[in-house]
């Protein structure tokens, strides 16, 4: 069997575009899912908290790929809005990751001593003020390592939106594979690219764990 690695080089520009879309999808998803998760976590502490709980339990217990398919095929029927595949993928990932982030933030908030809340209340702070000034800054710092891990998982999970033809790295690689029949070369190239991009992020997560991990 002969290998033809030149196929990778020939399609370098398409692969580079795929990488850009993958990174963009990761960054945008997190940019939406961090405030989204915070909002859902805060929602769960109010009178209509059951709505937030339902949201979290819905998205946490469905396979991500199903959420992506559902957003692509069912949502347009329900709400009569047609989104581009990229926007659809972004929406599906953001909803799912928001649910995870909401749980992460909730764990962070629960880990703050009750005495901190007492101290803030005793000063005369309102619930909103004590959340914003006292609890959340501590909680977010505490869950930073978890958020970083979610980031790395998300970076890899963006490959799932290839099923709805978003031209990110996985989809692009598969397309080239289909056109050239160079299965081994393209899958290997894809693995190398994901790994080379993922490894520094994982190392960064380790560093964040060391720097911000709770030691008390």
């Amino acid at each position, binding site marked *: 069997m002969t290998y033809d690695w030149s196929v990778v080089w020939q399609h370098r520009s398409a692969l580079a575009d795929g990488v850009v879309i993958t990174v963009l999808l990761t960054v945008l998803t997190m940019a939406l899912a961090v405030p989204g998760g915070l909002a859902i976590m805060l929602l769960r502490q109010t009178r209509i908290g059951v709505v937030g709980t339902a949201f979290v339990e819905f998205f946490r217990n469905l396979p991500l790929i199903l959420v992506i398919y559902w957003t692509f095929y069912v949502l347009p029927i329900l709400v009569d809005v047609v989104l581009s595949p990229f926007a659809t993928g972004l929406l599906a990932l953001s909803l799912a990751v928001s649910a995870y982030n909401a749980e992460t933030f909730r764990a962070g908030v629960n880990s703050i001593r009750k005495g901190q809340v007492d101290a803030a209340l*005793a*000063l005369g702070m309102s619930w909103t003020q004590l959340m914003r*000034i006292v609890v959340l800054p501590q909680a977010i710092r505490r869950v930073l390592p978890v958020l970083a891990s979610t980031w790395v998982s998300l970076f890899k999970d963006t490959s799932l939106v290839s099923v709805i033809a978003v031209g990110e790295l996985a989809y692009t690689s598969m397309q080239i594979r289909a056109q050239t029949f160079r299965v081994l070369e393209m899958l290997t190239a894809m693995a190398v690219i994901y790994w080379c991009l993922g490894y520094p992020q994982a190392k960064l997560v380790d560093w964040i764990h060391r720097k911000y991990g709770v030691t008390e």
Partner: protein
Amino acid sequence: MNAPVQAGATGIGAGRSPVIVYEDVVKRFGAFTALGGVSARIDRGEVVCLIGPSGSGKSTLLRCTNALERIDGGRILFDGVKLPAAESAARKVRRRMGMVFQNFELFPHMTALGNIAVGPKTILGQSLDAAERRARALLDKVGLAEKADSYPSTLSGGQQQRVAIARALAMDPEVMLFDEPTSALDPETVGEVLNVMKHLAQEGMTMVVVTHEMTFARRVASRVIVFDHGRIVEQGPPTQIFENPVEERTRDFLGHLGWSG
């Protein structure tokens, strides 16, 4: 749960104005009655020490005073007005009382200066500049001027508690509530905190202090209230409580502490 009004609850400090009045206050936690009908008054300028065994209700009464805990019976008057049930109204009353906790509860993500300035800035709406200027003055007052930029984790327990006192003072409270302020401290730093409190008392601050520091209670308190099982056993000037306690249970409690009068 109608306990008789405690002797002396209304007779002491005649002619002075009461800041806090407790009328038959009841607080339950599930089946446990933490306060079984407590009546007492705190007058302006008084330093009242609450003493008694652990779990006797002293800390609970303090936490009910600024509505951190809601009472199940009776009422508490602050400056003549009943503590409101609504949280937003309770907040306004709370701002007029400073509270110091056993575990300091400084905000760990803020410097000493930030901890003191945060209340006036966010709650009283002072400018950052004004709040920080005042915070520096208060740090100086508690002897920690050089620690303005230090984070709580780098301070000793005694230093943290002094910052916590300054944080409470920054809100210009009418009353200071101390919840076992020295119980979590190393013995060698207890003195520096008690000193700050003594100075505060000398300046005429109204103080309610839950404490196990009998020497402090004896030297600084204008009145001592002895708790047991959620009720007031006895109250009076420290000379009475420590030298001539009327009640057997007061003698028992002081005896357990090794206090010889």
